[in-house]
Structure formats: C-alpha cells, structure tokens
C-alpha cells in the first residue's frame, strides 16, 4: 500500500484576477521508504503541493481532490485538529529558508524541545531533562558537533547549513514516516548542500523515513531520489523510477529539461546555441487551457487543448497525447474530458 496517494488534487487560488487553478489534477504516489523527487521550475506549484499535503494552506485556497490517502486514511475527511496531530507525529516538513523558519525570539533548543512528544513512561518531573538529552542526541545525529552551544543560540546566530540541520533534527525528532523537504538547500554552498543531502539519505536508509524531495535541479534529484515526478505549471507531466525517466523520457518537457543540461564533453559546446523551449512559463493569470505546456511544446497538436490524463504504463506515468518511445494510452476518458 502506498504511504501517500493523491489523485486529481486541484488547488484554486482567489487572486485579484479571479480564481486561478494553481494546481490542476495533480496525482502523486509515494511508497514507504522511498525518496521521491519532485522536479519543477519555481512557480510551478511545488510548494503549494507540499503545503496542501500538510494542510497549512492560506485562507484564499480552495482544495479539491478525488482522494488524498495517507496510510489508508483519507486526509480530506479529517478535521484540522486531526491533521495537525498527524503532522506532529507522522509528517514533517523542512523549508527553503531555514533561518526564517525558526522563531527569532526563542532559542533553538527550546524550539526542538517544544516539537518533541511527551514520553509517558517517564515521570513528568523528569520529562524536561529527558527531552533536553534527547534533543542533544538528535542534534548530534544530524551532524552538529557542539549541540549544547547550538541549543542555547538563536537562529540568526547560526549559519544556513546548521539551521537546516536543526530544522531536520526538529523534523525527525518525532520519528515521522514522511519528511517533505522543500528545496532544503536553496542558496547554500555546495559543501553544505552535499552534507544535507547525505544526511537526508542516511535518515532514509537508517530510519526508513520516506522523503518527498522538492527541487528545481534535475541533476541533484537524479542523484538522490528513487522516483521522480516532473511538474510544470501546476500539472504533473511525468513520473517514474528516476533512472528510467532520465534514460528514456516520455514527455516532451522532460526531454527538454534533459537537453538543457550542458554537455561539457563536447569541446564545441560553448559555441552552440543552448537548447531551450521557446518562451517562458506563463503567469498565473494567463494559464493556457488543456496541457499547459501546449504553447511551448515542440510536439503540440490540436488535441493538446484537452488536458491529457495521467496514463500508467509499466511503472511509469505520463500525461501527454504525443509521448516519445511509446504508443499513447488511448483511454477514451482522456480524450473525452
């Protein structure tokens, strides 16, 4: 049974330009123990998806979905309170900007302790001490050398990398089943980036935490994730086992992304035109109908004004009327809707 199974999630935002479908019919399946990469340009709705999973949407959001199953329970049917307690114990998230994700007015230690659950086996007067020890232990586990000093400091006194490690420590202190990492290494040095990714994959292997890794760097994702989903403009384009997707992309968008990666082995490369799709990603108020890649897609035809449904073939999923390497899925539902 998949850990998280989302079918046709649509998020509509109320903006000054009217109601906009920021996410349209997004489906995502996450199995226990896997690192799932979610690839998308900035503005493609990756963070919206993450927040929708956690249920911390803004007040102008309208979320609809066919189903959103967490371990066999439907998240859509839960009350806010149930969602919150689920998040506290089973799902955790780390954010793009670790420093501003920590309360500036409180010491780091008190925030870790706050996130930890009460241990009912220990008498209440010793719980504080116990939590403190635990917090130190976790900080040590995520690779912080002097946990005591870090616990007494404030977020702005620490570096980006350490803050992100603290955030990870806070996130995993509850031993969650799923960790959502929204661009965890944005604007960090390469060395720190590598540390963080290594830490995440260690957590994945040792503690069997599933990770939803959100990023815009295809090479990072191809290195660290088991499965990969590619998103464009709030629609899922393609998803499958990372190696296979990279090897034989079915979707024109994935192919375009792969073509974007500079090929330094060719000495004449720097004199060649860089391969890109024409134009740029549309603004929220000018989203095209049907397949949103349509106006920029090299393979686009008349039929693309109807949104292709996600089609599942041999462990791969893709949403395109004219995929490469494979006969399209001629589900009649796809063309009718």
């Amino acid at each position, binding site marked *: 049974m998949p850990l998280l199974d989302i079918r046709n999630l649509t998020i509509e935002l109320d903006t000054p330009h009217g109601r906009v479908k920021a996410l349209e019919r997004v489906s995502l399946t996450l199995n226990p123990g896997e690192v799932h990469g979610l690839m998308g340009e900035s503005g493609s709705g990756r963070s919206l998806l993450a927040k929708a999973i956690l249920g911390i949407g803004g007040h102008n959001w309208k979320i609809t979905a066919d189903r959103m199953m967490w371990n066999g329970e439907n998240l859509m049917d839960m009350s806010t309170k149930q969602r919150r307690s689920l998040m506290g114990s089973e799902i955790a998230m780390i954010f793009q900007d670790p420093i501003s994700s920590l309360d500036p007015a409180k010491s780091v230690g008190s925030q870790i302790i706050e996130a930890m659950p009460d241990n009912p086996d220990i008498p209440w007067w010793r719980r504080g001490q116990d939590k403190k020890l635990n917090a130190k232990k976790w900080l040590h586990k995520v690779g912080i050398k002097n946990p005591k000093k870090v616990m007494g400091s404030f977020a702005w006194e620490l570096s980006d990398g350490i803050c992100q490690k603290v955030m990870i420590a806070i996130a995993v202190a509850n031993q969650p089943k799923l960790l959502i990492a929204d661009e965890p290494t944005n604007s960090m040095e390469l060395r720190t980036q590598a540390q963080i990714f290594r830490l995440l994959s260690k957590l994945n292997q040792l503690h069997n935490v599933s990770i939803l890794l959100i990023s815009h760097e295809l090479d990072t994702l191809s290195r660290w994730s088991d499965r990969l989903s590619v998103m464009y403009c709030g629609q899922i384009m393609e998803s499958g086992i990372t190696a296979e997707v990279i090897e034989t992309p079915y979707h024109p968008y994935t192919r375009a992304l792969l073509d974007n990666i500079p090929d330094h082995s060719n000495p004449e490369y720097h004199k060649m*035109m860089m391969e*890109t799709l*024409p*134009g740029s990603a*549309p*603004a929220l*108020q*000018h989203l095209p109908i049907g397949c949103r890649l349509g*106006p*920029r897609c090299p393979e686009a035809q008349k039929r693309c004004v109807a949104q292709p449904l996600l089609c599942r073939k041999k462990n791969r999923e893709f949403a395109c009327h004219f995929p490469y390497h494979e006969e399209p899925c001629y589900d009649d539902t796809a063309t009718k809707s």
Partner: protein
Amino acid sequence: MPQVNIYQEDDIPSPMRRIWHAFADNPFAFAGLWVVCAFILLAVFGPFIAPYSAEAQDPNALLLPPSWDPAGTVDHFLGTDDLGRDIFSRLLHGAHLTFGMALGIVFASLIVGFVIGAISGMMKGLKSSILSHLLDALLSIPSLLMAILVVAVMGPGLSNVFWAVGIALTPQFIRAIHQAVHEELQKEYVTAARLDGANPLQVFWYVIMPNVWDIVIIQTTLGISAAILDIAALGFLNLGAQAPSPEWGAMVSQGMDNLLTAPWTVTIPGVAILCSVLAINLVGDGLRSALSPIKH
C-alpha cells in the same frame, strides 16, 4: 533564439494610478477624503456662510438648545451659548482657527522638518548621529509641556499656539524623514546610482526621494490630526486661544460652566473636533494601506 512572446501583454498601471485605485476601493477612506475637503472649504469660506458673526450676542436667546430640541429654534441651528452667541456660526468661524491653523502649522513644520531631516539623513557619521539623537530628546518632550514653556515666555495667545505646536511637531517630521532617507541610503540601488556618477543632490532628488514621498504623506496626515488635537487642548486649557475666540477647544472650555444645564455647548464643538480628526485619520489610514502593498 528570439524571445517568443506567446501570452497576451499585461497592462501594468502606473504606481500613482494603483495607489489611487487602492485608495478609492476603500469606501471609508473615500468618505474621509470628502469630509476633509468639506472642512478645508469651511476653513476658507466658513466666515462668509456663517449666519451671525462670531461675537454677536443675542440677549433674547441665551442657552438655546439645538433646533431639533422642542425648545430650540431654526434661527439658531445648533443652539446658543450663555451669552446668546450662535454656536453654528462660531463653529464656522472656528474652523478657520482650528482646522486652518492646523494645516498651516503642519505645512510650516513639514518644510522645516523636510529640509533638516533630508540634510541630516544624507549626512553620515557624528554630525548625523548628534542631530538624530538630539531629535530623539526633543521628540520625547510632550507637546503640552513645550506649549507651557512657550506660554510662560511669551504669554498666552493664539499666535503662540503656532510656535508651541510647531516646535512640538517639527522633530517628528525631522525624525521620520531622517530615518527614511537614512534607510534608503543604505540600499544597493543608491550605490548603483552613485557608481553611475550621480552627485549627492541627484542621488537625493531622483533616487531617494521617490521612495520617501509616501512616508512624508503619511507623516503629514498624522501631523494634522495631532495638531488639531493639540490646538484644541491648548484652547481648552486656556493656554492658547483666549476667551471670546471661537476656537473649538476654547469653545468647549467656555461651555464647561454650563455643562450641566446646557451640555450641547460642550458636545457640539467636541463633535466637530472629533469629526475633523476622524476624517483625517480615515484618509491617513486609507493612504497607508494603499501605499503599503507597493512597499512589500
């Protein structure tokens, strides 16, 4: 590769138009603007519309209640005070004193504050910090205390109110403009302009000022409401406008003797002050929220 534009062009309104739309969208602020305009007109033309002169006493109509009261008459729309003076006419004459003078004081101190604040904001180091710290000190002296000092030296009177309130207001403007200019000066785009070879005057006027105007505007509205309240408070304490003057605060204090028998002599000028300050605050509030989304 040529840039392909496949989406329709977005019409981006100019900042001024955007502010105006945001402001006009707020009905309260818009209503406030109309009331402020009405008060400005009254401050200029009030004495001409007033049915009686400010000091005209009608011995046959002492302490007449307002016209909606059964005992009131339409001749004296808002009633009369203990000397038989028509309150409505006095309010109209007083608009010139309270509201008009507040505007005058605010603009005078705004100009002084703007010049000093801009100069000190553009300066760096010790001179700037001396100026700004001294301003902190001046700012912390309450306006009423300042007024008492001015009155002690020059004696009470309406012209001294000008100095008292003006001296109390100026540091606020200096400080706000100083801080705004100083903050903008730290930003990268100013450095960029300087590297392009702009001299300090050009940096100030073309680069910094467009980003400081909104603070000047907000401070002005705050200043006007503070000035009205201060002028009225001084009039009330008999430190500003003196007895027969139709200044609104002084009218409240003159009505105090008859508070129990004729409460309208106190209520009506009070409501006039409240309305004018409220209207200005509504406009200021609307402006602030209209300006803020651009900042962020």
